[in-house]
């Protein structure tokens, strides 16, 4: 039995904030950022966070993988919404995985996802590691331009792997290139020249060389090197140091996505797997107070064309935006006047959420065993007036079903961080109806009959008690999302 990678998935938010727009707004204050003002960064909407993006990456993975086989999942992130509530537990509920499943959060460094992968590969699996980060940086900082938001999921285990594990190598040293204390909003970083010379070149580059030696490989054996540093020239320089061919160095998506933190190594790995041919050696290198180096070799199973959107699919469905003020507002960095309608108390009773967790977090509706009528949510007495069936409802998951718009509006009166708020009634293929908010859409996307897909999002925030409420929204099905 081979151990290795069974499946992968990715998620990149729809909007791409143009770095030129960020720079244009901040040039008066930070003219030195001009050199970094090229390209765009993936930008999560107000209703996304590390949890929701992780769910989407996992769903992308599940496009061609039976989710019931998953024995465990780890959510790796440095921007987990909850410090003490299992964030991976929310992901588990959203994915409608059975209760007997392992789930844990992994955090603490930019390499937490590669570390989680190392641990997962030491077990039997199948274990899904999801890296997900919604980066937060001060306005007018270099980090604000360099960072991006994304998630990627890798399922590892034994069996018919698409890439077998050759080996893992980890080093740990308290190299503090940047840090963020518990509860702090932003990173504090040290001089980039020092990071490059002592951190990237010596520490990270040394670890890559040591790993290759440990696996009895040379740099020339590596076909794809995912070296997860978005600083220009660094992956190339570390590759050269290790004897890896320049053409083997994978794109770090610094131009179109940005540095997505904990997600970034897995995003790079997912992109590499998308393009890989059989018998290719892929090196994955994550950096943060040390390094994790993993080497895989693809198998013939990689040839099966995946149905997933993946990194390439998400790259193709982006929307450019220059709206920097909206970005600042969505990150809580601009205190806009929201009006009295935003004052409604959003308190979430724990009891109600627990009782309804399958419906709320998993979008599980009901189907009447007697009539086959589908409804959301379930109810003791079914909605079909011809049956008057009581106690006949079976669980019926709706999240993966496509839907069509029946009614809609664009509401400018209700408070929304991204006005106007679009919502309406949608009918699911196979039955069931829901009045849902629409995510990531504009007026040209919406008409009666338009095909929609469900996405897991933040419904609202209880700002008084600092609690995030999640539910499902409908997003327009876009090109490539067949």
């Amino acid at each position, binding site marked *: 039995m081979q151990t290795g990678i069974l499946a992968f998935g990715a998620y990149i938010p729809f909007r791409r904030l143009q770095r030129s727009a960020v720079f244009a707004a901040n040039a008066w204050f930070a003219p030195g950022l001009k050199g970094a003002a090229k390209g765009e960064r993936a930008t999560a909407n107000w209703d996304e966070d590390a949890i929701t993006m992780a769910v989407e990456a996992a769903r992308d993975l599940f496009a061609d993988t039976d989710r019931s086989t998953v024995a465990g999942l780890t959510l790796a992130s440095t921007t987990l919404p909850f410090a003490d509530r299992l964030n991976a537990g929310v992901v588990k509920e959203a994915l409608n995985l059975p209760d007997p499943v392992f789930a844990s959060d992994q955090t603490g460094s930019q390499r937490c996802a590669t570390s989680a992968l190392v641990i997962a590969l030491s077990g039997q699996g199948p274990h899904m590691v999801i890296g997900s980060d919604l980066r937060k940086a001060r306005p007018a900082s270099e980090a604000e331009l360099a960072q991006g938001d994304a998630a990627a999921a890798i399922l590892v285990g034994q069996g018919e792997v698409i890439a077998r594990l050759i080996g893992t190598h980890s080093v740990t040293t308290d190299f503090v290139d940047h840090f963020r204390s518990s509860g702090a909003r932003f990173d504090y970083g040290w001089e980039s020249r020092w990071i490059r010379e002592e951190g990237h070149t010596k520490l990270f580059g040394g670890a890559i060389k040591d790993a290759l030696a440990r696996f009895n490989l040379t740099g020339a054996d590596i076909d794809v090197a995912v070296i997860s540093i978005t600083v220009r020239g660094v992956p190339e320089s570390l590759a050269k140091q290790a004897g890896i061919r320049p053409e083997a160095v994978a794109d770090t998506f610094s131009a179109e996505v940005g540095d997505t933190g904990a997600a970034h190594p897995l995003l790079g790995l997912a992109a590499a797997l998308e393009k890989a041919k059989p018998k290719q050696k892929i090196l994955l290198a994550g950096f943060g107070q040390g390094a994790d180096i993993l080497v895989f070799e693809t198998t013939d199973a990689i040839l099966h064309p995946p149905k997933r959107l993946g990194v390439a699919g998400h790259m193709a469905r982006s929307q450019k935006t220059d709206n920097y003020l909206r970005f600042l507002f969505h990150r809580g960095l601009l205190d806009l006047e929201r009006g009295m309608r935003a004052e409604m108390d959003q308190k979430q009773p724990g009891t109600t959420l627990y009782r309804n967790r399958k419906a709320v977090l998993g979008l599980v509706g009901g189907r009447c065993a007697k009539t086959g009528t*589908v409804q959301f949510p379930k109810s003791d007495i079914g909605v079909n007036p011809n049956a008057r069936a009581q106690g006949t409802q079976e669980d019926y998951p709706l999240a993966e079903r496509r839907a069509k718009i029946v*009614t809609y509006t664009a*509401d400018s009166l209700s408070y929304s961080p991204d006005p106007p708020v679009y919502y309406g009634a949608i009918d699911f293929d196979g039955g069931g109806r829901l*009045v849902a908010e629409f995510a990531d859409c504009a007026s040209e996307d919406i008409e009666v009959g338009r095909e929609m897909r469900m996405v897991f999002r933040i419904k609202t925030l209880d700002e008084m008690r600092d609690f995030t409420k999640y539910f499902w929204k409908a997003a327009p099905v876009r090109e490539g999302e067949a």
Partner: protein
Amino acid sequence: MAKGIKDKVAILGMGCAKFGERWDMDADQLMVEAFTEAQSDAGIDVSQIDAAWLAVAFDAVNIGPSGIPLSMALRLPNIGVTKVENYCASGTEAFRGAVYAVASGAADIALALGCEKLKDTGYGGLPVRSRGTTYDMIGVTGSAPGNFAQLAAAYRAKHGVSKEELKRAIAHVSVKSHANGAKNPKAHLQKAVDMDTVLNAPMIAEPLGLFDCCGVSDGAACAIVTTPEIARALGKTDLVTVKALQIAASNGWELQQAGGWDGAYFHTTRVAAAKAYHEAGVDNPREQISLMEVHDCFSITELVTMEDLFISKEGEGYKDVLDGFFDADGRVPCQIDGGLKCFGHPIGASGLRMIYENYLQLLGRAGPRQRQTPPALALSHNLGGSPIQNVSAIAIVGLHEA
């Protein structure tokens, strides 16, 4: 089928406060203003009232729980006072309580009063509120215009009407109501508007602009009801009696795909209207109904309701609207008092305000806005909720033995 309510109960008196931004008054003062007019009209002493119903929809910015605020405001003689809430249909619900009490013989004279104090919220439109802890996790807490605007998208899709044509039709609805409201001294909005103003107003919820939405007001309205026999004994000659009173509540059918509801009409209104016409003995409403007060919370609601009340054929309501069929000088005037659009919409009071107008019109007491052809049968339609889930209430009142 039950025998129904026809001609069992007469309206002894009605009253209505001036609707609008009543910065000068609390809810109890509005109640007194409406009641004083009704009591004078009825010519009775407070001690003759056997039971009372109070309609209020929004507690948080209003009077709080129970029937006590009405009992206190009017200093009622320790009779039973029941507070009812059924969304925006609360006013008709209170009327139903009082009418049923009289019809049952349990009360000789009963009071229904609706009141709402909405201008203490600090912003325009209805207060944002919870719909319960379970709903709040999975439902959309849209605005009222957002909820009703969805009718337009579905109506266009179903009947093949262009965006522009439907927008013009609903604009006509509002222009007509403003023209009517300009003749009504108790109306919140008393200014006529032209088509261009309506068409070019800021968008609230596509396709509803500012003038497609009704006013949100302070106000109160009330009815004192009794039996026709007692009314005559009290000296009343021209009697207005209740011909039909029906309320239909959604049960989730519209919310299931298999039900076949397409979003372009009010299922409950059709149910309530069919029952009400049967109860009142109306078999051709387009010919028999003299005038209507409907729940025009939004222009699109009024347009669709013309079809759901079986006045216009399905898919042709917008043509009747554009033809002026529902104008004050049209065949079946609708909102001759300005409607929710201009008279205003103090939620709990609205159903009773509609009946108040119909009562005045039937008795020829509506002043400059009096319908010239003497009306005999008037319908009011009071709706609460949203198109996909609502309470629809219909009251038909008419001249006794007409």
